Structures are given as C-alpha cells and as structure tokens.
C-alpha cells in the first residue's frame, strides 16, 4: 500500500467551452506525488498551472471541465466521485491555499468562527473540542497570543499573519496533501521567506504532501524536491529540483533560467526568449514551444514531443534531446 503514490495524475486534460469551440488549458498532464513529497509547478501566466491545481480538487468551474485523464488520490479515482464524496476529500484530505488571504477569509466572521466551522463541517466533534483544535493549529503557525487572535476579524491581521491563518485553516483536518497556489506572491520578501519556511517545516513535521504552484523558480527551488515546468498547458520538463534548477534539459527551462538576473553576471545582458507564450487559441502544431525555440527543427513543427526520460531522473518533452 505504501508503495502506491499519494496522488497520481494521468493524462489530465482540462478544457474550457468557448463560443468558437473548446480551448485546452491543461493538455495531457501526468505526474506522481509520493506521501510527504513536495512538488513545485512553475510556469508563466497562462501556462495552466493554477488550472491544474484546481483540476486535482475537481474544482474547475464552468465553462471549464475535465475532458479526460485520471486523478488517483489515496487509491480513489477523483474524476468519478460524486460531489458528496468529493466534499469529504476537499478541506479534509486535500487542502488548498490561495494567493490572496483577504479573498479566502470571510471578512465578517472572526477567525475563530471560521476555523471552528471548518472543523465542524468535516468532523463529529463538539464545539469545545473544535476550539481546542483551532488553538493548536494557530500555535503551529506561530501566531503570538492565539487565544486573543481567535476572536479577531481578518482585517485586524497583517498580510503575513493572514496567510498564516489561511495555512492554519488548511491544517485543521490534518490533510495528506496541500495545494498552495502562489501562496506568497502578494507578500514582501521578508514575510515570504517566513511563510515558506513555515510551510516547509509543517510539511516535514506533519508528513504532508505539497504541490506549490508559483511563477518564481527560485522560490520553488528552495521548497520543492521535484519541479515540473509548464508551458502552454503541458509539462515540458519534470525532475529533481537540483537537476531542473541546475542542469535543465528543455530549451524553455534553459531560457527561463537564463532570464533570471541571479544567473547572469551583474550588468550583463539577460537571456531573452523571443516572442510570447501563445494564447490557447493559437498553440502551434507539434511542440508548443516550437515557434519560440531557437533550436527548432522540422520535426518539432510536425509532431508533439512526448515527455520522456532524459538526463539524471529528468523527463523532458523535446525531440532534439534524444
């Protein structure tokens, strides 16, 4: 049983029904996540990383829908579960953390009320027991004077403290997996580092799995054990962090790393990836990156490259690496 991954995503395909036909936002995405494992999904805006995150919880809202593939979580197929059973998994076995804590917290309820309600919705415990659990989680996210803080409203917290509350809520039912979608993008660097260190520590101490979705490669490299790079709805490269961040295979990943000021001597020119990521209506035939790739050959325009093993435990989708 333990050999089985916690989450197994196979050929996930998410589409959006538009007036002029369907758009494929997530195109045959596959990855596995072992129990307690941390995976980072990086990509630029529009790459499909957030939709993938929502897809795992089967939370894609209309006009989007899961068009194909399998989501196996703790041995259960999430795409086939009725809504009632899905709700037992969401917030219970899988929790989600979003970018803007002001949007996720209810401004007219105290933090304590929101936490207690979440517990009562999922577990058969008394109100007093629920409050005790809430207090314990607030302590876990290192918020000073937890008793007093439980009685306060979200606006009485700073941005960093609010995100701690959101993490505490995500922890309430001791989930096996946390999906964090740009959890620190709205925060300042010093607070970002605090929150990420907290999240990392909790994942390790509570043996939770983590899927960290972000645009920031440096952030991901500090937290995740493996990194998946997404481009125009597909995973173009996935592998151990040291490998993807240190010795990337796919031309897009290489381009992205070269565009980071940290990797270039001060004052030197940064690597530019020419052009833009295609909008979903205009993804090129063959390899989605072909129209921006400097190495592009004829085969790239004709056939979609499969995600195949390349150097040192890395999978990459590129014809030219074979």
């Amino acid at each position, binding site marked *: 049983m333990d050999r089985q991954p916690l989450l197994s995503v196979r050929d996930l395909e998410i589409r959006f029904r538009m007036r002029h036909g369907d758009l494929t936002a997530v195109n045959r995405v596959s990855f596995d996540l072992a129990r307690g494992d941390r995976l980072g999904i990086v990509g630029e805006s529009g790459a499909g990383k957030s939709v993938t995150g929502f897809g795992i919880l089967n939370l894609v809202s209309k006009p989007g829908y899961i068009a194909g593939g399998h989501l196996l979580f703790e041995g259960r197929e999430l795409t086939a579960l009725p809504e009632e059973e899905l709700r037992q998994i969401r917030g219970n076995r899988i929790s989600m953390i979003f970018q803007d804590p002001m949007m996720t917290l209810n401004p007219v309820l105290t933090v304590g009320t929101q936490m207690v309600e979440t517990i009562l919705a999922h577990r058969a415990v008394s109100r007093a027991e629920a409050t005790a659990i809430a207090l314990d989680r607030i302590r876990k996210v290192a918020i000073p004077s937890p008793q007093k803080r439980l009685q306060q409203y979200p606006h009485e917290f700073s941005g960093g403290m609010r995100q701690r509350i959101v993490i505490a809520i995500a922890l309430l039912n001791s989930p096996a997996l946390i999906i964090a979608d740009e959890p620190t993008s709205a925060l300042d660097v010093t607070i970002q580092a605090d929150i990420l260190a907290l999240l990392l520590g909790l994942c390790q101490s509570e043996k939770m799995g983590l899927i960290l979705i972000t645009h920031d490669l440096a952030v991901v490299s500090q937290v995740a054990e493996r990194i998946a790079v997404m481009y125009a709805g597909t995973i173009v490269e996935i592998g151990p962090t040291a490998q993807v961040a240190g010795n990337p295979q796919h031309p897009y990943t290489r381009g992205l790393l070269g565009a980071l000021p940290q990797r270039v001597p001060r004052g030197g020119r940064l690597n*530019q990836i020419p052009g833009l990521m295609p909008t979903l209506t205009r993804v090129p035939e063959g390899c989605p990156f072909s129209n921006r790739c400097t190495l592009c050959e004829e085969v790239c325009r004709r056939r979609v490259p499969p995600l195949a093993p390349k150097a040192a435990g890395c999978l990459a989708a590129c014809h030219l690496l074979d």
Partner: protein
Amino acid sequence: MNTDTLVSIRDLHKHFDISGGWLDQLRFSGGRFARRKTLVQAVNGVSFDILEGETVSVVGESGCGKSTLARTVMRLYPPQAGEVHYRGRRIDHLSREQFKPYRTRMQMIFQDPYASLNPRMRVRQILEEPIRFHRPKTSGSEVLDQVAEIMQQVGVDPEWRERYPHEFSGGQRQRISIARALAVDPEFIVADEPIAALDVSIQAQILNLMMELQEKRRLTYLFISHDLSVVAHISSRVAVMYLGTLCELAAIDALFDRPRHPYTQALLSAIPRLGAKGFQHQRLTGDVPTPIDLPSGCVFHGRCPHANDRCAREVPKLRPHGDQTQVACHGVEEGRLPV
C-alpha cells in the same frame, strides 16, 4: 558639490492628510472637542544625489515610501519640506510654467502598462502627444518620423502605430510606455516598478531594453523596485528604505557583499535563491509599524535585534561608513554590531 550630480534630493518630506472632512477630524477628549489631523508620513527626510549616467535603485517593502519618493522627485506630488535640485538648480518650488522645460528632461515609466496607457488613443497618438506638446514647432512629417524611430528603438514594429493598446501584450505595452517617456529625449528617467507586472521571460526583455537604451542615450535612471535580484543586476548604487526613511545607501557590490544596516541584512537574507535548500534567512519579529504613527527614535528599533535605549530615543543620521557607503544606524556608528 560634485559636478556630475544630475539630481540632488535634500531632506525631502512628503505627508498625506487622510483625516477627511472637518467632521471626521473631530475628537472628544478631556471634556471638549478638538480637531485632529491624521497624517500618513510617507517620506521623512530622505537625501541623496543621483550622478549622471548611473542607475540608482530604491528598494524596500510595500509601504516604505519608495513610490512616493519617486513621484515627489518627479513633482507629481508637492513635497512638504525639503528640496529637489536638477543640475544644481532648485526645481521643487517652480511654477507649472517654469517647470515645463524640465518635463522634457525628466520622464517617468509606471508599473502597470495596462493602466498607464490611454485605452482610447492609438499608439501613434500616445507617442505624438508629448512631442507636439513640448515641441509645438515640429512639423507633422517630422513628428511621424520621430514616432517611427522611437518605436523602432524600443522594438515595436512602426507598422502597428495605428493600433490601440489593448491589441498589445503586457511586454509590448511596457515598451510603448518606455517609448512615450523617450519621445521628448529626456536625460533622467524615473521607473516605478517597470517590470513587476510582467512574466520572467518578458522581464528579461524589458530589462535588456532599458540597459541598452541607457548605453545608447546616456540615460540616468532612478529605479524603484522590490525585487532585489533585479536591483542587484541593473543598478550602480542602491538606497534601502524602511518606513519612509533611508537606512543605507551604497554601491551595488558593497551592499550585496557587506550589508551594514540590520534591516538591509535581513532583507538580503530573505531573497529567494535558486538552488538554495530550505531557509536560513534572518527573521524579523513583529510587523512593520504604520506610517501614521511612527515609532520614536530609529523607525526600525522595534524589530531590530540590536536595538538599545538610544535607538528608541534618538533618530539615527545617515553617516558615511567607508567608501561611498552611508548608513543610518547607531549600532553601526558605535561599532557594536557584529560585522
């Protein structure tokens, strides 16, 4: 005074009155009503010089007053106190009409290219406007030539001049805002988070463009950013701000190799680093105080691990420490900080 000082900022203060109407200002205390004003003290006594041809970056976290400083230097806000000098001449007290010639010398690029371009104007109109306003004698065909040339320089195809901003991507729009700033051939550009709204690969394009233009046109930049790795890349000197005051001003290598101020040290240690495992950053306790109710003494003393009584009482002055570096910290001054 240094001969190649382009802009000199001296003891600049900018406060915003947020107390509202007089009814909102009424407070009842000690048995009678009194009117109280609520002030946001955004910038408090910032001084530094910007030399010709260099890039000075102002970094700090949200609410530290870096954008307010930029806008006050550009005279988009009138300062409460202090002076701004441009090539040795004081400009902050000039009238609108007297200031007009300086507008062609100093231009600004804003953060959000979706908000800073008028959606109802064609690119041609956006780029023509500054030329026609500041150089009204330019003939129609000359204006067109200049627009085409400037579009070419920033990498936007001049064929697209009849298009509207919504037809362009974020990166292209930021190129157009840069073109608009360059249209009047300025020497000094204030860029307020010009790449914060863009994706990594597009950020690289815009940063390269800005560095290229600086070389070609000998531009001087005042660059406002929260992204320290970007700042490390493009600046010659960096000013670190915290809660409206300057903590440290240093040449780029000195700052990143040997930060002096405790806040700078904490800030630098928190930069996400590619390939670092886990987190070893210096943690600050507590939250940033509000600029409505500034702490006494050093504004950082409440969160500083090295603070003592003097820090809580006395405001530290920006003092030179070694070559080009200036630090506002009692601890550094007294030599009681671990180096």
